[in-house]
């Protein structure tokens, strides 16, 4: 399999910067996910790798060989499309065989490779069907088989599961990952679904406004977000106002000091909802902070309970917790305390993509 090296890629649409100075290094066999909200540039980057867009600057190399000037049909980077793009006028077999015919693979080998690919996506009994006779999930399996059968250097996937319903999406996600691992294919995967990104990837690359915010393994992205955007986009988070005072950094909602030293920039604190504990009494350890407030909303979501606590300064703190007897006994309007560990609090500069401070 192949490694991918992208350096200094820039893409402009008139005055709009779609991609700015993209540097990415993907190891052979890695499952590399581009994650971000719509309009962040992730699809543009994928399509630039595929050759459907041309970059204004920068290089894209596969195994050290630059491909950024090659036309799309000579790049050998098979792609799976969001809307399947299964040729409606060709049978399942002919769809999968399309790329092999372009590569002038001999008939016997072609048929064997198509069969193998169809087995891999569990469509071996559907070879003669036409696409309109298939469900959405089956069509995307054809799309996948068509892409893997050509054994290209890199596999590109553009939100391949987003048109499927939730249950099928989770099912196919696991299957896709299994096939990718068994073939060891270097994969670039685009999604806006953070859960999908975390569940499948070796590396998650979070993008926003055409800029890479952080590229790291899933756990690190979640646990050690590099900036405020990553902290807010991946997973839920509470953002709490901080004030730089003479005596140190002050958390307004808790009416307590977090650090002894004040900062020279405006900061904001982030704490994950599952790290916030709701209790009735005010007693806390020295390494904890407590935020007094009233319960504003309670939603039972099965395995967990989600509570919204309105602090006295008006900020709302979310907590996700196991439904313990104490929590279950609470009702809207009750006074309570949201308790957090000082160590769990992350500090960011208070801008949209503000850098991590602690």
């Amino acid at each position: 399999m192949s490694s991918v090296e992208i350096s200094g890629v820039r893409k402009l649409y008139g005055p709009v910067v779609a991609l700015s100075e993209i540097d990415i290094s993907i190891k052979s066999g890695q499952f590399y996910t581009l994650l971000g909200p719509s309009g962040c540039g992730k699809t543009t980057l994928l399509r630039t790798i595929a050759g459907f867009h041309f970059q204004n600057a920068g290089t894209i190399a596969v195994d050290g060989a630059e491909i950024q000037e090659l036309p799309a049909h000579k790049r050998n980077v098979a792609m799976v499309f969001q809307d399947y793009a299964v040729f409606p006028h060709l049978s399942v077999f002919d769809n999968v065989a399309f790329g092999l015919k372009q590569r002038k693979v001999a008939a016997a080998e072609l048929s064997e490779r198509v069969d193998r690919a169809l087995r891999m996506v569990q469509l071996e009994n559907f070879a003669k069907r036409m696409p309109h006779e298939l469900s959405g999930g089956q069509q995307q399996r054809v799309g996948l088989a068509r892409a893997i059968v050509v054994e290209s250097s890199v596999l590109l996937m553009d939100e391949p599961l987003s048109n499927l319903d939730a249950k099928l999406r989770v099912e196919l996600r696991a299957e896709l990952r299994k096939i990718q691992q068994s073939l060891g294919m270097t994969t670039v995967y685009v999604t806006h679904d953070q859960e999908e990104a975390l569940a499948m990837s070796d590396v998650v690359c979070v993008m926003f406004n055409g800029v890479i915010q952080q590229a790291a393994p899933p756990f690190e992205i979640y646990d050690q977000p590099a900036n405020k955007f990553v902290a807010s986009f991946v997973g839920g988070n509470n953002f709490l106002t901080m004030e730089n005072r003479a005596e140190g950094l002050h958390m307004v909602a808790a009416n307590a000091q977090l650090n002894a030293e004040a900062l020279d920039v405006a900061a904001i604190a982030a704490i994950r909802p599952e790290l916030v504990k709701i209790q009735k009494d005010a007693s806390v350890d020295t390494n904890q902070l407590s935020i007094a407030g009233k319960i504003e909303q309670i939603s039972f979501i099965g395995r967990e309970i989600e509570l919204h606590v309105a602090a006295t300064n008006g900020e709302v703190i979310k907590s996700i917790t196991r439904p313990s007897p104490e929590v279950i006994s609470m009702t809207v309007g009750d006074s309570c305390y949201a308790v957090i560990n000082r160590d769990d609090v992350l500090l960011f500069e208070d801008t949209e993509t503000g850098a991590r401070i602690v």
Partner: protein
Amino acid sequence: MTTAPSFLSGFKRRLDFWNIATVVVLAVLFVLLILPVFSVFFVSFLDEDTGAVTLDNYVTVFTRNYYLKGLWNTLFVGGLGTLGACLIGVPLAFFTARFQIKGKAIVSTLAILVLVSPPFIGAYAWIMMLGSNGFITNFFGRFGIDIPTIYGAHGVILVFTLKFFPFVYLMTQNALMSVNKSFEDAARNLGCGPMSTFFKVTLPLVFPAISTGAIICFVLSIADFGTPAILGRGFRTLSTIAYSAYTSELGGKPTMAVTVSIIMMGISIIALVVQRRILAKRRYASALTNLPKPDKIEGVRNVLMHAYCYLVVGIAMFPTLVVVYTSFLNTKGPVFQPGFGLTSYARVLSDAPEAISNSFIFALTAVVLIAIFSSLISYLIVRRDTAVSGAIDVLMMVPYLVPGVVIAIGFVTTFRSDWFDLTGTAVIIIMIYFIRRLPYGVRATTNNLRQIKPSLEEAAINLGASPLSAFAKVTVPLIFPGMIVGALLSFITAINELSSTLILYTSGTATMPVKIYISVLDGEFGLAAALSTILLVSTGLCVYAVFRLSDDKEGSFT
């Protein structure tokens, strides 16, 4: 970043199939459309004798009574013909869209047949009924009653009305069927009766469709040559003035013919711009939900409504039936004899067999070219978001607006010079059919291509197909139905073409419409009827084929 090599490979990148196709398409459009139209435009500013640049030609048109009268006549018959088409078409559309009409499919099929049969056949059929020797005139004459003949402005208006109302009818019917029922329900709920709901809500909502239909009627009326030429008898419109100016200026510079033609074109363009202006403020999204269902009504009103629908298409179809009937009457020379027979058809075979073969050869050749070019052009328009493809899209409007006389004169001035002369050849007629009917093909394939996801072509390219091979293996098979429908529509309009052929033909390249026109002028009604019938049957077969192949049967024709 290495600039020099990437510049070089950037150039190679630009040499891909679609950029070459763009250049070819632009070259063809330049030679066959821009150049002729501009040469016509240019000639209109030249002095006929000295060749100096002047505005005198326009001054002449706007001061000489002969031309002013023609201008007024053109606007008069065009305006009233359009009004008539709306007055007939809108109620017909309302009845068929909103009420259960038995035989609704037959009504719309007949309307389409009226639409595709050439206007000059209608004009000449009316002469056989109400001309100075028409059978209706003669019938009343036997009782000593003089009924007014069909010749003159009223005849032209009648033919335009009955010929062009299907545009208004089909477009309005389509709009009426896609108005969300909730709008009307809301009006009723707020206290409007059925009549005031129609006039205050329904009619304003379908106004864009009515006005589009009306504009098509108007533009076609302005440009129509055959009807005023056959029925005018001294009543001249700009198109007949342009044609006779052209024939009398033959050899010299056709300055007056051209100036008049440019003014015709100007009227069409102004009409279109005005309509666009009006529509710009009235964009109603048509939701394809909660569509109205046709009501059933009982009693006298139901009978009257059915009578109206059948009567309108019946009268409009009547001239065609007269033509077919006449073609089977026995003739001796130009004189009709008692009894039925195939003498007229025998005369076609002996006197004008080449008209039939010419018509088919020219139209078919043009249509093959149209199919190829329209698939390329629609790909450029739909898939390539560049200024050039936008310009091509706009250029595709031009043939609709340029009257046949204009472009034909443009062809003569462009393709006849000291070293080469294409006039009088089959090639020039095929070229003019190609460029004039190309938009029909482009429209059909464009509509089809818009429904095809671009990711399909990208998938093919991604799997290693070159742009050309992706187009051939994926795009063309998917837009093939559109290409066929477009080809059939262009064929129908090409084989019925009269005005530009009349300027470009020579004895060896006469077509069926030309022969019909000449026969009518010579009083050879039997021969004209037989040729017209052959033309109508060929047209009818194509309409049938479009019906079989197209999802939106009626929409294909408007």
